[in-house]
């Protein structure tokens, strides 16, 4: 077993996104990735800090990098793309002398050396990979149609995030396929959901999240799978607000990818905190089961028809399986 990775949960993961934190820890444990919390971590500053001042943002993140380094971690992983973006930006900018000096002034002590910051998604994808996941799946998500939604900053800007394709990221697609799910080609993988505008400009967030839900529905997805607590909050907790503005009634659940991964790995429900989702996952899982049953019946029918042909009978006309029609 290799040394534990420094784990930076981020503020949301101890509140509104607790299920992301719980399922992340559970999946990592099940897959043999040892996590150890960055001791005494504090807020990275997130979007609000960098919109006010780049040095303030740098200092808030740098403090956490210092904590990680002091604890002996050369790699820090976080589930939240916004935290990741803040940590990575600070890490990159600290290479510039004038920036570093100002940040150190705010910190009141020397800043951290380079730290390799990665997302939980990246670590699971690169360290375990679809093959490693597949080998450990005990409850495949067969029949479940998922729209993987990465959010706007998991892979962008590519020069900074340095992971996966910025226009058509595939890491989550590959992991979910490995779990047995059916991944739809989701064109809005990186479109913005309205980010933190839920409070100050609800109308903006409603418009943007509605577009994403609409697209997921027209792709025929049972669930939108996310990797960002802000996306999850807008699409799940704020669903009522979004639906009421768009005049639609979309009930598609929005699980974290770690929750589905844990499900496929056969982890107990308590480890996945599925109950914390506002829109329940169960109907999607039931729909998937039904679809799979229907398909199996269809396949059975085809087999029977073939046998019949072999035996010299005329084939009976087959009912067309609706669910097999290509999604619009």
């Amino acid at each position, binding site marked *: 077993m290799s040394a534990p990775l420094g784990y930076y949960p981020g503020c949301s993961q101890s509140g509104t996104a607790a299920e992301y934190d719980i399922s992340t820890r559970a999946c990592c444990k099940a897959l043999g990735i040892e996590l150890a919390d960055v001791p005494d971590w504090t807020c990275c500053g997130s979007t609000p800090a960098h919109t006010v001042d780049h040095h303030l943002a740098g200092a808030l993140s740098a403090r956490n990098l210092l904590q990680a380094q002091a604890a002996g971690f050369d790699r820090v992983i976080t589930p939240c793309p916004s935290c990741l973006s803040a940590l990575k930006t600070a890490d990159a900018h600290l290479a510039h002398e004038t920036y570093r000096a100002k940040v150190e002034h705010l910190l009141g002590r020397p800043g951290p050396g380079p730290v390799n910051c990665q997302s939980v998604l990246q670590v699971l994808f690169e360290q375990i990979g679809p093959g490693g996941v597949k080998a450990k799946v005990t409850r495949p998500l067969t029949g479940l149609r998922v729209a993987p939604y990465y959010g706007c900053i998991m892979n962008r800007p590519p020069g900074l995030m340095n992971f996966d*394709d*910025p*226009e*058509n990221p595939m890491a989550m697609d590959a992991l979910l396929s490995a779990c047995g799910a059916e991944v739809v*080609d989701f*064109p*809005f993988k990186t479109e913005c959901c309205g980010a933190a505008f839920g409070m100050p400009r609800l109308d903006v967030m409603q418009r943007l999240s509605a577009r994403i839900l609409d697209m997921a529905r*027209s792709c025929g997805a049972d669930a939108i799978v996310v990797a960002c607590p802000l996306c999850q909050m807008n699409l799940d907790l704020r669903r009522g607000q979004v639906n009421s503005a768009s005049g639609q009634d979309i009930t598609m659940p929005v699980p974290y990818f770690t929750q589905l991964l844990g499900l496929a790995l056969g982890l107990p429900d308590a480890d996945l905190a599925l109950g914390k989702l506002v829109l329940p996952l169960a109907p999607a899982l039931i729909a998937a089961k039904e679809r799979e049953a229907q398909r199996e019946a269809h396949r059975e029918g085809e087999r029977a028809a073939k046998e019949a042909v072999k035996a010299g009978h005329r084939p009976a006309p087959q009912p067309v399986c609706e669910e097999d029609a290509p999604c*619009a």
Partner: protein
Amino acid sequence: MRIGVMVCHCGNNIAATVDCEAVAAAAREFPDVVYATDHMYACSDPGQKTIEQTIRDLKLDGVVVASCSPRMHEMTFRRAVERAGLNRYMFEMANIREHVAWISLDRKRNTQKATDLVRMAVEKLRVDRPLTPKSFDVQKRVLIVGGGVAGIQAALDCADGGLDVLLVERKASIGGIMSKLDKTFPTIDCSVCVLGPKMVDAGQNPRITLHTCSEVEEVSGYVGNFEVKIRKRTTYVDWTKCTGCGACQEKCPSRKVPDAFNENISLTTAINIPFPQAIPKRATINAAHCIRLTKGKCGACAKICPTGAIDYEMQDEIITEKVGAIIAATGITLFDHTRLGEYGAGRYPDVVTSLAYERMLSASGPTAGHIKRPSDGREPKTVVFISCVGSRDRSVDRPYCSGFCCMYTAKQAILTRDHIPDSKAFVFYMDIRANGKGYEEFVRRAQEEYAVEYVRGRVAHIYPTAGPDGGQLMVRGADTLLGAQVEVAADLVVLAVGAESSTGAPELAEKLHISYDHYGFFMESHPKLRPVETNTVGIFLAGACQGPKDIPASVAQASAAAGKVLALLSKDKLESDPQIALVQAIRCIGCGKCERTCPFGAIRMRELRDGSKRAEVVETVCQGCGICSVTCPVRAIQLQHFTDSQLLAEVNALCRTWDETTES
């Protein structure tokens, strides 16, 4: 020795920051200088006359001109001193324009540096020796690499002028991109109708030998006497027997081969003739898809072929040819749009390249000229064209403009409206480049007469949506003139992919010893005054291989290159440059270091009767690069006109002046 010096003002180019009179005055004090003057334009007719007259009047043995770069006018002045009876190598040039006047405004120090450079030139001239070129026979044959419209035109012109032509083309047929086009701007005339007859001429002209499915393997030699190895890739069909009847293609059971000629939007057979007008019209087996060659089974074509032309055992062949000159005409390839994730990275079948669209428009294309969506065969009613795809884009390292895509986009939009009158055509563009004769008028016709909607802005994202009649593509762009985001639900999107240098262009350039730019386009010798020459004598450029060009420009350059070749090879003998390496046999210890270091293979080791060895320079092969002379441990090999003593004379002169100026 009697030396004359002329310091040129170059109008104000030099005189503005160099005191030319003072330089001339200083030169009068240099050893052996009997005359020094300054002149407004040394290269002008009166300037040259003055030089000639002074040589005669004062019985000069050598001349120094201080002016521009030797790359500009060395030949001009060498000819002038020759006219006055001097050996052309008894002339030296000091570059006081590019190396002095244009790089500093400090008049005092410029004048000092110019004086130093003149002193160096004078000191070198004092130890210069007359050199005489040797003459040699030339091969009256030309090799043309690349059989696009440029290569074909150059071949026809050279053959017309009486030269034998070898036309080497990588593909199975000549014709290049133009043979794939439907119509051409700005006249909308049929592309193959104008190109076809030229292709036939090239195929039938007894002076032109076609080598298709072939590539240049190796080039050695020099102007007038190049030796080229050509690899003729195996076609598995004996072309001396094949009549192009096409029976094999009918019978071939491997029918799922992407058709490269149709830009892979349709399928063909493993044995095929690329298109009906192909020259030569001969069958070729695509080995990767041939069942016989991959699995050992089948053999259908061999059974059906009436002439017994099929030969599954056929191997590549390498032939060697001698030519006097070479024209590179390798054209372009197109930007790979699958690099652009925002346009689907090739995932959406109804996002096609402009060249695939030409095949869809062409009556001889896979859809017989009916525009159909590759995904479902439906006729598109809304077609969006996007310009500058992989052009003018620093983020993909293609900052240049491809020049002709604005025009072909206007053409394709017009043709779309022509083919499908109830269709809508949108063009997203940043700027419209339409600077040829009749081009602007053509674009205006597209906008006004054909109601093509031009939208000024780039497209950020293309994604599939569920439209009323099956899938459509949402094109999200900007109209920067409105200052708004705009969307078009399109049935088909055509990407005006930019031009790139042809695959393998840098490697070919290395073989030819010619320069190429960062993007693989071949470099002309001078962008204005020597646009079809390269820096390697005897090698010329035609068409888009030198930079993106449309057909008229490619054809014009091809004829220009042919003209240059005809002029060069009109002489029976050429003179070799005497500025080459020379071995002093008494000094040579036969170590062989020079032989190993020469990049051109111009040095041979000769064995003497006592068994010892001496280096020997093959005069016609030596390019005068001088690498050998710095390698020789005993300084036995010297570059003529740049010998150690000549270079040291310059260095000494420089050090002496440096001493003087620092002491004062």
